[in-house]
């Protein structure tokens, strides 16, 4: 019964979204205001019905209604409430459902908060978003139906994948999907700008905020995924360049490039068309990621042909890309060039172009590395693998160039080849950077890297990062200087500075975050590990740490049984803490899962995995011990990056005040004057 109800809600949502799409197209064509409002109302109803269907799904999960196949396959009676809740998105149909729900909610938010300056293009925005929503709803009622019945209902489910029973899996998919779907809004505005024929400043301020929001969510989502892999998979790394990770990284790179393009568009009026292309590509790649993870095309081209959903996705993303680019080819010439001529030369705008080049090149490398095995198998029938060493052959060089580009780009000014403060800044930074770089090398025990080549790369990289950080700080100090005379003390001075430089401060914080992340990558270039077999009370040492095994214990946690080998860690006789590696057994699954023990510090993460243990007595345990340098730094830097993004989004100069008023001109409906008096999009 709930299955029927849920399916009916999805069907109603599909009908409403199709109506909304048609109404928005007609409204845009006829310049008909009330028709657009009707379409917006239909979008709201669509989202409402999707949320209702989601509530039905959650209720079925909590009532253990195994007559729904999705519930039966992915949950079981023993599952704790928290993981029952997250089961919603732990398989294919459910994650498609979540994607669709977040997209529908963002569609409604974007349509109702649309700025008055943009009112004349809103019908196109609504039409683009509803086209995507209705296609996803079509898939949800046809090939990816979450409410398929399973009768007669079994008494217990098959159980949830133990790998997904981790707090990070609760928050990682929604965060990542938030980022993916939020990129739909800049995409819709790009399509709208092309359909309408031009870009206004109101356009930029709305898309900038949504892109920043998407960027923050993507940054957090990618990092949470990495952290999940780190604490759950047990191979002591957080990033393996596998296709699923890559497909979440590509939209991030595109969104980052889009943000840098928008800076130029905002300041100089250039790169309008490149912004449009990047907005299209960013959204395309978020769908592309979904496509390659959903369709089974990663494992083999041949498994791809089996499912229905894969080819459907392929048709959709291909038409998305071809349609958008065709629209671009026809309409881009109508987008007016900026008033001012191009003066590039050595300047901040050129540095921003170089940054975009680096980001897009990295995206191209990631893209080739992800799809080339598929292409190769399809074209020459030769199966090849592209894994971490391939990406590591290119990424460090691009990262190195990015460090320099970040420093130069921040120091340079628009329309000027002169760095304020001159060469002195660069040289002083080069001298000052020696100290923190040496400190980092010493505390991070970099010199224990035995081979010359990685050691050299690490030292050069660390020094360059420190130089770049010092350059950024010097630039910050220069920007702060004019505020020295503000009356009212330190607080008033900083308030004035932040009010005037919100976007800059956000960028400063985010760039520091990026540099610290690179520092973290350089630090954990070299991890050390060792496999040992211990009895209770025995000690193994690794990299100066002594691991003493305590008493092997068996305990219950939630629905799992843990077989745990606590390891007391000491260094030079001083206690560092205790690591708890374990194996876990879930009631519905036969195999034993790894529960990684991590003891984190700033410089070293102590990471222990049980490889095997004597099943009868638990007396001997074989362990894989790792000392991973500066992993904590990488995750901390992500927090800093997200913080920077959030600060930048509060920029009021670009945020609330528009410099350009272009009210909607409606031929039908309440008339053009009413459009202003009733507040347009907010009415």
């Amino acid at each position: 019964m709930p299955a029927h109800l849920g399916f009916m809600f999805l069907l109603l949502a599909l009908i409403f979204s199709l109506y909304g799409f048609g109404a928005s197209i007609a409204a845009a064509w006829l310049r008909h205001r009330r028709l657009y409002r009707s379409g917006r109302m239909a979008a709201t109803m669509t989202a409402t019905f999707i949320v209702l269907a989601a509530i039905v799904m959650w209720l079925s999960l909590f009532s253990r209604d195994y007559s729904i196949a999705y519930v039966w396959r992915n949950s079981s009676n023993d599952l704790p409430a928290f993981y029952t809740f997250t089961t919603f998105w732990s398989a294919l149909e459910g994650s498609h459902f979540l994607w669709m729900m977040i997209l529908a909610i963002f569609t409604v938010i974007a349509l109702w908060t649309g700025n008055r300056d943009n009112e004349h293009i809103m019908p196109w925005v609504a039409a683009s978003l509803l086209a995507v929503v209705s296609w996803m709803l079509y898939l949800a009622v046809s090939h990816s139906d979450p409410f398929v019945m399973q009768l007669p209902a079994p008494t217990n489910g098959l159980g949830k994948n133990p790998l997904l029973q981790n707090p990070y899996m609760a928050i990682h998919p929604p965060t990542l999907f938030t980022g993916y779907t939020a990129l739909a809004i800049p995409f819709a505005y790009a399509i709208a700008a092309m359909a309408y024929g031009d870009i206004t400043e109101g356009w930029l301020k709305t898309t900038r905020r949504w892109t920043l929001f998407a960027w923050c969510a993507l940054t957090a989502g990618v990092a949470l995924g990495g952290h999940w892999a780190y604490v759950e998979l047990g191979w002591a790394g957080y990033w393996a360049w596998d296709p699923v990770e890559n497909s979440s990284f590509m939209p991030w790179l595109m969104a980052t490039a889009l943000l840098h393009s928008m800076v130029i568009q905002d300041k100089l009026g250039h790169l309008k068309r490149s912004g449009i292309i990047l907005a299209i590509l960013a959204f395309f790649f978020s769908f592309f990621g979904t496509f390659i993870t959903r369709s089974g095309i990663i494992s083999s081209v041949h498994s791809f042909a089996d499912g229905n959903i894969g080819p459907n996705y392929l048709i959709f993303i291909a038409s998305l890309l071809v349609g958008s680019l065709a629209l671009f080819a026809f309409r881009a010439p109508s987008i007016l060039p900026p008033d001012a001529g191009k003066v590039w030369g050595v300047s901040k705008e050129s540095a921003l172009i170089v940054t975009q080049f680096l980001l897009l090149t990295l995206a191209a490398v990631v893209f080739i590395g992800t799809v080339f095995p598929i292409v190769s198998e399809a074209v020459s029938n030769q199966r090849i693998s592209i894994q971490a060493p391939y990406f590591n052959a290119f990424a460090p060089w691009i990262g190195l160039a990015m460090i320099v580009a970040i420093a130069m780009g921040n120091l340079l000014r628009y329309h000027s080849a002169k760095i304020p403060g001159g060469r002195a800044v660069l040289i002083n930074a080069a001298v000052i950077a020696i100290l923190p770089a040496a400190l980092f090398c010493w505390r991070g025990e970099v010199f224990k890297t035995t081979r010359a080549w990685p050691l050299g790369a690490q030292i050069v990289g660390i020094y360059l990062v420190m130089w770049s950080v010092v350059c950024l700080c010097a630039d910050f100090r220069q920007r702060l200087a004019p505020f020295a005379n503000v009356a009212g003390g330190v607080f008033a001075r900083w308030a004035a500075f932040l009010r005037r430089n919100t976007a800059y401060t956000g960028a400063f914080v985010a760039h520091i975050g990026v540099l610290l992340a690179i520092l973290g990558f350089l630090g954990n270039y070299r991890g050390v590990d060792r496999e040992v077999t211990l009895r209770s009370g025995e000690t193994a040492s690794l990299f100066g740490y002594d691991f003493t095994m305590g008493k092997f214990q068996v305990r219950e946690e939630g629905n799992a049984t843990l077989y745990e080998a606590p390891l007391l860690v000491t260094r030079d006789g001083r206690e560092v803490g205790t690591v708890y590696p374990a194996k876990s057994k879930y009631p519905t699954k036969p195999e034993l899962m790894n529960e990684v023990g991590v003891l984190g510090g700033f410089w070293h993460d102590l990471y222990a995995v049980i490889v095997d243990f004597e099943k009868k007595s638990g007396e001997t345990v074989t362990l894989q011990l790792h000392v991973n340098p500066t992993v904590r730094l990488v995750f901390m830097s992500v927090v800093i990056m997200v913080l920077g993004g959030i600060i930048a989004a509060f920029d009021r100069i670009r945020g609330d005040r528009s410099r350009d008023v272009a009210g909607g001109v409606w031929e039908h409906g309440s008339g053009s004057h009413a459009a202003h008096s009733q507040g347009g999009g907010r009415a």
Partner: protein
Amino acid sequence: MRAFLTLCLWTLWLALTVFHAVPVFANQSTTAPTTASTSASSDAKASVFQDQFRDVASDLRCPTCVGLSVLESDAPFSKQIKDEVTSQLKAGKSHEEILTFFTERYGPWILRVPPKTGVSILAWAIPLAVLLAGPLAVWFLVWRRRDDLAGVEAVKPLEEILAAWNRDINKRRDSLNSSLPGNEGSTTLATDEGGNQA
């Protein structure tokens, strides 16, 4: 100063890319094991052996995992491969010989990077081409613009521009007038008698 800076940056980039391309196209990997230290201590020997083992094991993919090398994996298949690598290293085979052995047995799929032959060469060539051509494109499209603009910046006097506009408008009006059917002369569009005429 600007040209010098550009030259420096471009040379640096070229050097980096070429430096990087050499190990990519050479068959030998960059992390070739250093010659064994002359120290007779068995500890150092074990460490060198361990390094060699890691180099080989991290170049082979775990056949049953996603994205991991056999070194990082404890899957049964990976363990077999690791045992095979250990015994071959002990038998004195070199890094490449062992990789060739596995490639012959399982196909190029077992290597973690695509081979540099056939279609797969594209996977290496395209990123390198982008890395090399990209800065050139940026140079030609963006940085050099400034020189072009030097000519444009010498703006014509306003009067000249206005005169050109007026000539254009008059020409269009004349052609419109002459194309109006039937009534040449009687209902021509008004001629602009304002002050804008050249």
